[in-house]
């Protein structure tokens, strides 16, 4: 952002290999990377594209089982690959810093934030302990953390995820490095939290003229942060250009397809007849974990062949509502109706047919599929359990289902979940839900762990299945782009209360409830000026969590 034209990092012809199954497999196949002082480079690509590996290689570092087989990495005239351990030790942490994706997992839970903050400056002899602590508070203020004088004396578990991510950025800044590598710093955060972190990262990088490599899979985010964007695909560079140039005029087909992802949108369906019986009707549900109520009088209907998207940030009660519907968490007050029939509140009291009608697809396909069970058995179990099919009939039905989710049965029937990609696992999750032949499926953040292209494929599949089988979906998500593409109706939740509900077209048009408005405005757009405009329009104190706090 304050590009000086002076070269900082130069990587030439980098080839990297990872060891698995006794052989070295290529991860990066000859990528060049240059970064000037004060410049921010965005690295994007889907998972497995090698962006994190390349980002770490810019520090001269490789993870265990990975090696740099060819190429050179020069940092400010120092050859990092030939540098001694002492030389590297003097650079890392002092002149090169790293911000990891999950701050919660990267802080040591046993030490206070400020102690961890001042460790690097003291070790590298940049500042004394007291100076560094003073400087830490100053940085916390610049990053707009609440209570900058006190927050450093808390332990990592005592601050929220977004605050922790900012504290980690402050820690990376503690020695005033020349280069910071941001590895998906906002991916795990809610939109309203993300925007604050983005604004403060951008601000501080600009103030200190730090060069940065910003790794992400979210194009809209990188558009706000980077001066230049490099697109990676399976270890190869696809293209690189200035941000504006890249957004307005992508050259390669792959880049264009990334840009086009957000264009999938289903037509609005006609309004539901007023006398139609909803498939699922949630009526005045209040539920509690222990003695604390987490849902307050939640009511909404889901009709045949419709998708109701439930949106809200984490902790707003979206998933708890799903748990009430499935009967895992019997509500304290209120009831759930299926086709006009009241469902028993506890799933253990429901009969087999009632259980069959309500199916669920999970966010993390990794934990939703038993890693020791073969695909054919995972899908075959509900077929046998509900349909009573065995032997050849069962196999035939499973093959039909695999067909429906667009995976060739012959190839996948005997595989284990670990032999599938993330998107394929999610498809198996869908097939398992379909195998029960339900009327209603709860989709709990089904696309949020997936790359955009893969996620779009899943959304299209779900839409097609809905049209073919007249399914009803409850679609839990915090991603408004997903809502825009698949939902018919939207329910906005905050703190266990439904703040607004209605057809999709109404929701995306003003007037909104203040919270809906905030959610909508916090979704990054592809326009590189979006964040700047938003900040000038609203002011730093009226975005993100700060604004949410004002509302209550």
């Amino acid at each position: 952002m304050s590009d000086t034209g002076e070269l900082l990092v130069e990587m030439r012809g980098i080839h990297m290999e990872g060891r698995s199954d006794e052989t070295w497999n290529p991860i990066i196949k000859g990528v060049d990377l240059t970064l000037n002082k004060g410049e921010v480079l965005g690295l994007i690509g889907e998972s497995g594209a090698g962006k994190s590996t390349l980002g770490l290689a810019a520090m001269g570092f490789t993870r265990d089982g990975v090696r740099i087989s060819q190429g050179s990495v020069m940092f400010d005239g120092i050859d990092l690959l030939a540098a001694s351990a002492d030389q590297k030790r003097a650079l890392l942490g002092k002149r090169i810093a790293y911000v990891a994706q999950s701050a919660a997992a990267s802080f040591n839970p046993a030490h206070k934030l400020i102690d961890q903050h001042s460790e690097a400056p003291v070790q590298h002899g940049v500042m004394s302990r007291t100076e560094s602590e003073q400087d830490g508070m100053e940085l916390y203020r610049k990053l707009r953390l609440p209570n900058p004088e006190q927050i450093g004396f808390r332990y990592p578990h005592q601050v929220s995820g977004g605050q922790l991510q900012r504290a980690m950025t402050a820690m990376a800044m503690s020695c005033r490095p020349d280069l910071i590598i941001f590895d998906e710093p906002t991916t795990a955060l809610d939109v309203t939290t993300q925007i604050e972190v983005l604004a403060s990262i951008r601000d501080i990088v600009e103030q200190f003229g730090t060069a940065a490599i910003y790794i992400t899979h979210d194009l809209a985010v990188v558009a706000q942060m980077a001066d230049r964007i490099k697109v990676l695909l399976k270890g190869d560079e696809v293209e690189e250009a200035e941000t504006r140039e890249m957004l307005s005029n992508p050259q390669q087909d792959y880049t264009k397809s990334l840009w086009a992802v957000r264009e999938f949108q289903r037509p609005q369906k006609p309004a539901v007849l007023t006398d139609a019986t909803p498939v699922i009707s949630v009526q005045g549900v209040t539920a509690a974990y222990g003695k604390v109520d987490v849902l307050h009088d939640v009511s909404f209907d889901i009709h045949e062949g419709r998708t109701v998207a439930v949106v809200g940030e984490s902790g707003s009660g979206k998933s708890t509502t799903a748990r009430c519907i499935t009967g895992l968490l019997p509500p304290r007050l209120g009831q759930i109706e299926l086709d006009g029939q009241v469902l028993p509140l506890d799933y253990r009291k429901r009969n087999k047919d009632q259980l069959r009608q309500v199916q669920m697809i999970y966010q993390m396909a990794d934990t939703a599929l038993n890693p020791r069970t073969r695909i054919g058995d995972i899908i075959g179990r509900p077929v046998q359990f509900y349909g009573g099919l065995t032997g050849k009939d069962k196999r035939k039905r499973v093959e039909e289902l695999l067909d429906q989710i667009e995976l060739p049965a012959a190839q996948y029937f005997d595989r284990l979940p670990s032999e599938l990609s993330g998107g394929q696992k999610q498809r198996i999750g869908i097939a398992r839900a379909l195998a029960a032949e339900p009327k209603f499926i709860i989709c709990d953040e089904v696309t949020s762990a997936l790359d955009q292209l893969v996620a779009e494929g899943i959304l299209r599949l779900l839409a097609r299945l809905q049209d073919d089988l007249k399914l009803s979906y409850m679609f839990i998500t915090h991603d408004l782009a997903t809502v825009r593409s698949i939902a018919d109706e939207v329910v906005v939740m905050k703190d266990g209360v439904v703040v607004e509900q209605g057809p999709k077209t109404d929701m995306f048009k003003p007037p909104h409830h203040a919270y809906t408005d905030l959610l909508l405005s916090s979704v990054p757009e592809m326009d590189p000026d979006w964040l700047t405009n938003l900040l000038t329009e609203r002011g730093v104190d009226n975005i993100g969590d700060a604004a949410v706090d004002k509302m209550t």
Partner: protein
Amino acid sequence: MSGLATIVVALVAIGIVAWVGRFAMQKISGNAPKFRDMPFAVAFGYVLAAVLVALGVWYFFQPKANEQGIQNAGVIFFRWAVQGVLIGMVAAWIFRFLGRMVGTSGSRKLFRQMPLTASFGILVIVVYAVLAIFAGLIAPHGQETVFAQANVVPGGNPALGGNPDFPLGTDQIGRDILSRLIYGAQNTVGIAFATTLIAFFIGGTLGFLAATLQGWLDQVLSRAVDVLMAIPSLIFSLLLITVASAWVSGFGLTIAMVLIIAVIDSTRVFRLARAVGMNIVVMDYIEAAKLRGEGLGYLIFKEILPNATAPLLAEFGLRFCFVFLTISALSFLGVGIQPPLADWGTMVRDLSAFINYASFAPLAASVPLLAAGAIALLTVAVNFVVDWMLYRSSGLKE
């Protein structure tokens, strides 16, 4: 110079050699990364290891006996130990080499990734298993047969008091020690194996039940286990076996011992199974199965058990060692496997007096060490294999 001063001087000398050696290697190798980035502690370790190896070699080639013909027992035992380790390593290496050559592609791959310790462990376990299963065919004599010659020295050399008919000698009432060792494998190892299986069946089932159902059942079972674990296990089993001996005797007492040790050890298995199960029941696929309306049996055996096999197998190996040592200890105390059945623990107890000859008659003193060594070897072998399995299942390998 006192001993302490010698050690200090030696360590300082090693430190100086390490520093100089590292500096020299840096110059000679033209600053190769290996020497350039070597911390001083690592260099010190290399020199210390070299010094220890040199000392070992020097001691190994000391004469076996002095001019007066008195045997130098330390040297003899040291030679046996070194020879044993070397033979073990060579055997393990050959075994691994063969494993890499024959078998299915899967087993060949397994052997390729295997460290030498694990292949040694597997080899020992295989040998023990063969000996235990075919003891009746392999053993030259019966385990209860008493010969006229008692206290024959092992080695089979008549000049030293041995007898080629009894390569490992005979015990104090004239039974062939080799045969008793082989039958002991059958008795001790077989009983330990059965005991461990029962312990796992009880502990595993209850542990998974507690993890799945939770609530009051979990509370009752866990507190009961806490109470059982609070009593020192060896003393507790001694007490219970003594009580049991009021009703049963002979073979019945052995069965009682198996059950008692199984129940006491199942508390440890319960703890592990419950902890592992707790981590698995929170997974989404368990929730999916519950919402499908699956019964308890399906949940435990089809969903939880396949995902808990790695830690349970590792625990099985360790638990087997503990059970085995407990049985040997009980036999040593006289309440375990009852004579005339051959058992390693009893053999160590019966022959333990010979250990007093260690300083002047190493061959005679080695008699109780044979059974003790058989116990130690199996324990070490099982632990090697368990370590390797834990390493494989922990995901550290990637």
